[in-house]
């Protein structure tokens, strides 16, 4: 399953997750965009769904560990979210790989798939990360969505419900952008590279 080109694709996608964080910081955008590499990894390896899931989860975990050690020590708590994201990427988003690479671009189908998968990923991500946000961070992770949590708490909701509602409001927007970026990067990736990554290991000659 882990051929050399796939190992390199995983490392590249993990590095992309890490580097996009620094791009977002450089151009000062109010977004996370920390899972583009995870989704892209599943798209690159796709027809083999199990390999796509394992590779995209590995990419997510490696970038999470490195980011936790060097930049954001709280990211490791969201490992379960990365697992869920890798599952959604390998078993749902990757289904649209033909549409994402179709030439000329089928704008409507492309846009619909991006929004659909963005919302799906956002909802899954909100549900999986809610217990961590509520019980580890007391509902406040330092992002702007904490004010949404405060708004829902002020309205009388319990902590868990407030975190969930805040996640449902904010996550689909961020995740739709991530699916869009991953789809566009996948579209721009040279076919040679994709063929190399998707090639199955050859049995050794006897």
């Amino acid at each position, binding site marked *: 399953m882990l051929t050399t080109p796939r190992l390199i694709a995983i490392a590249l996608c*993990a*590095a992309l997750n890490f580097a996009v964080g620094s791009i977002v910081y450089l*151009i000062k955008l109010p977004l996370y965009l920390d899972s583009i590499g995870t989704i892209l990894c599943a798209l690159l390896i796709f027809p083999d769904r199990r390999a796509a899931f394992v590779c995209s989860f590995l990419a997510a975990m490696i970038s999470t560990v490195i980011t936790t050690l060097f930049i954001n020590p709280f990211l490791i708590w969201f490992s379960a979210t990365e697992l869920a994201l890798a599952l959604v990427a390998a078993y749902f988003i990757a289904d649209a790989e033909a549409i994402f690479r179709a030439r000329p671009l089928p704008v409507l189908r492309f846009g619909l798939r991006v929004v659909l998968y963005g919302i799906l990923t956002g909802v899954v991500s909100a549900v999986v990360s809610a217990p961590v946000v509520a019980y580890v961070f007391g509902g406040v992770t330092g992002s702007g969505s904490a004010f949404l949590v*405060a708004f829902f708490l002020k309205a009388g909701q319990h902590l868990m419900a407030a975190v969930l509602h805040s996640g449902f409001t904010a996550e689909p927007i961020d995740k739709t952008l991530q699916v869009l970026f991953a789809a566009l990067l996948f579209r721009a990736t040279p076919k040679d590279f994709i063929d190399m990554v998707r090639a199955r290991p050859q049995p050794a000659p006897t």
Partner: protein
Amino acid sequence: MTPNGAIVFTLVVVVAAMMSRMSGLVVLYLLCALFAVIEVGPNAAAALRRAAILMVPLAAFMVLVWVGVVGRAPADIAASQPGSRAGALVYVSIVCARLFLIVAIVQIAAMRFASITPLQFIKLLRAPMALKRLGVLTLSLIETLLQAVDRAHTALIASGVITRRLSARNVFNGWVLVQTVWLTAITSVTGRMRDKWPMEHTLGLLDPLLAETRKDPLRTPDKIWISCAAVAVAGIVWGDFYGLP
């Protein structure tokens, strides 16, 4: 101490911190202070300063949200009681104390290995070879990508596509920077995979370099620290059972 021991010790302390109330946190702070003094020495101050730099903004934000905006603790909300800002402040203090402990122990453990390179650190880990290779490749490619980010960022600013500060142009054209970086990395990696690495046998040379030479993954100091952390966990569970605060 070995990286394996440091990772196990840190994990046990983190799990214990998540389980503990105030009394448990005090025990864990004492254990971490002892670990910092014995294993890291004067460099522990730098690790604690970094932990504080990471934690203070989050703590301030929590105070703003819980004490300033919400004005009562989650327990008061759950019980539909009016609550008070003092109750919210106590809640924020406990959450922050727990998070600071977690951040600090990770920073202290990382500082313990500040004198060795990431490659040496990965070599000393007890992990499957494929994972070790992945770690080394990722660290190498992060360097490639960050250099690509620097070059593309400068070029796109010079050509007026994006700006240095937050701007509408960055929102619309920031994507160009991401795509440029990705294509630069892909081109470079495809070239290496096709020609450079097979010719130089680079990946094959990694395996003996990363192979572990020691049979026992843990040394005596590792075992002592892990045992201390396990005793602390047992104490915290015992304290919980007898209702310590």
